[in-house]
């Protein structure tokens, strides 16, 4: 019953070495940082407690011992200042990486991110480049409540001039970060707190993941799930459960929110005729609103056998209580239920 002939999509091939080793998402980021800093002396990292403390989530760990405090640079609690310092360093020949402890605190730095970093290249008619990377963990699930749990990637994806990456696996955490550091533009990398300890096969050496290429993580004929961040693994788990129930799902991970690989998404939607969009962020104007719009505008329109379905965080601040926090964002069982409904009802 599915037009599954179109399943010729890019099972995206990563560049670089193919030897792999198992490490966690956090270790993979540290590996990328180490690799990049050893390879290019213009690269340095700054942020609150990234040095001796090892980072609020332990991502930098002992990096300061290996690279030194000059390039693994502790700052005062000044998000606007450090992003701005990153902009200034970037336009004068360095390759700064700024760590923001929680992506919620990018709110403090929004002027330097959106009004400065993002616009300088265009606004100056190309006279300058801003090769700046901003790393910030997003997402809920740690009981840190409303000011430490947001998924704000849509803010950045709404700003022309920024690239926005959202790695969902350890290998992409490394590969996308390396690509971000290489990129001559400001790149915001939204990491996920709950993934930091998740292990995965990670390519060794200087192994980049291209920006702007979605990954089809799984193929099935009945519906296409598009998911980001922590919802990718939840969707894959849901897909396994659905398969046990006779429903076959394709799972697409855009990886890069901006620039968006809409070609792959549209193709994969056409191939099943049903689409479920899953994000942790609040529903209204989250990233999947854009994906829904892109699909609704595209040639997929005539192939859709069901309305576009979004499964997203509730439009509420993230609550503290664990059971409420869990209820606020899509869990595996929610994905299973939504997918089942979509396939059974349409």
């Amino acid at each position: 019953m599915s037009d599954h002939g179109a399943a010729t999509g890019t099972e995206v091939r990563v560049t670089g070495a193919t030897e792999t080793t198992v490490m966690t998402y956090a270790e993979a980021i540290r590996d990328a940082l180490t690799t990049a800093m050893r390879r290019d002396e213009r690269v340095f990292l700054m942020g609150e407690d990234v040095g001796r403390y090892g980072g609020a989530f332990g991502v930098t760990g002992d990096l300061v011992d290996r690279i030194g405090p000059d390039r693994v640079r502790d700052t005062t609690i000044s998000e606007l200042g450090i992003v701005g310092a990153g902009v200034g360093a970037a336009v004068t020949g360095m390759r700064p990486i700024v760590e923001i402890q929680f992506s919620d605190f990018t709110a403090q730095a929004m002027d330097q991110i959106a009004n400065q970093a993002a616009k300088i290249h265009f606004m100056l008619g190309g006279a300058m480049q801003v090769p700046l990377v901003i790393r910030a963990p997003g997402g809920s699930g740690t009981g840190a409540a409303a000011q430490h749990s947001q998924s704000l990637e849509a803010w950045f994806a709404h700003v022309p001039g920024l690239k926005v990456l959202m790695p969902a696996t350890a290998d992409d955490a490394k590969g996308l970060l390396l690509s971000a550091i290489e990129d001559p533009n400001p790149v915001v990398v939204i990491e996920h707190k709950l993934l930091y300890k998740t292990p995965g096969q990670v390519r060794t050496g200087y192994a980049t993941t291209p920006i702007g290429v979605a990954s089809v993580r799984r193929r099935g004929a009945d519906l296409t799930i598009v998911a980001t961040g922590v919802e990718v693994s939840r969707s894959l788990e849901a897909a396994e459960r659905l398969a046990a129930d006779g429903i076959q799902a394709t799972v697409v991970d855009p990886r890069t929110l901006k620039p968006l690989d809409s070609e792959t998404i549209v193709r994969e939607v056409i191939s099943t005729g049903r689409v479920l969009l899953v994000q942790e962020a609040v529903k209204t104007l989250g990233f999947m609103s854009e994906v829904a719009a892109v699909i609704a505008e595209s040639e997929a329109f005539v192939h859709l056998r069901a309305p576009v379905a979004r499964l997203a965080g509730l439009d509420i601040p993230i609550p503290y209580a664990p059971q409420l926090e869990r209820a606020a964002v899509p869990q595996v069982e929610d994905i299973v239920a939504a997918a089942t409904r979509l396939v059974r009802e349409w």
Partner: protein
Amino acid sequence: MDNDDPQQFSVRTDTGAGGEPMTEVRYDRASALDAFTTMWRIRRFEEAVEDLYGRGLMHGTMHLSIGQEAVPTGACRALRPDDYITSTHRGHGHCIAKGADLERMMAELLAKETGYCRGRGGSMHIADTATGNLGANGIVAGGVPIATGAALSSRMRGTDQVTVCFHGDGALGEGAWHEGVILAAMWKLPVIFLCENNLYGMSMSSAKAFPLEQLSDRARGYGIPGVTVDGNDPEAVESVTTDAVARARAGEGPTFIVAQTYRWRGHSKSDKNLYRTRDEIEDWRQRDPIERFEHSILERGLVGRADLDQVRAGVRDELRGAVQRANAAPDASAADLLSGVYAR
């Protein structure tokens, strides 16, 4: 107190445009007992939280103020019930000192419907409107402009309420701190910016971060008085706060107070204490604000050992009851999650 590092040394100095210290608070028996009780309630509350958290019975993250009890105790004693405070991520002490109910606090931390925020806020967002606590804040320096606004509001409403804005030394790095203080200084608002200088913003040493002889010198850039005080001495804190409150109520504008203190525990549970030495921690444990105060009031004959034992027993029972009742309360309900976003 033999350390001559200016960041640690506890001195009282007016450095800004303000006048000489005027008030020298010396407790009588009632005040001594009250201050002791408050400090003890804070200490025991934090220890109970630490215990619950350590046993996996509490969720999220915790920022404990053990070692810093004298600051909120002294400061809030200088306030009226209708005065405001804004608090921080390390806010249990402020909340208790301003008069909050331990059971409702505990219920909040245990994510109960009976908690101050109905389990929606947790440790970093407890507020208690009844006692003028405008809320903890998960954002470093987030409360600073809010405090300025509360002070503006009192002024405009024609009350003589004062607002105390608690914040950490690390908060001095934030633009929010700057902007909040600037507006307050320009409008001479009745607000006190009270820095709990525990020497670190997470792992960043404020002595390194801010190349000042003492942090209260920061006030010089704003045209407001700055004063440094021994933050482990509730009477000293109450003295400078009393002066600042008097200035504020008299329409003379804001004061910046730096209370020198120390947090005994790590910043939060992720802290491995790599950025400070065992010796330093030990040193400051020797200056335990509660023990020191205990000795002092005993020595001065204000209270007897039995009084203190009675306080301790009372607090123990109070806390035990609070934890028990909080535990027994219903979990935060998901029923009105969506309808709770907007006020009606």
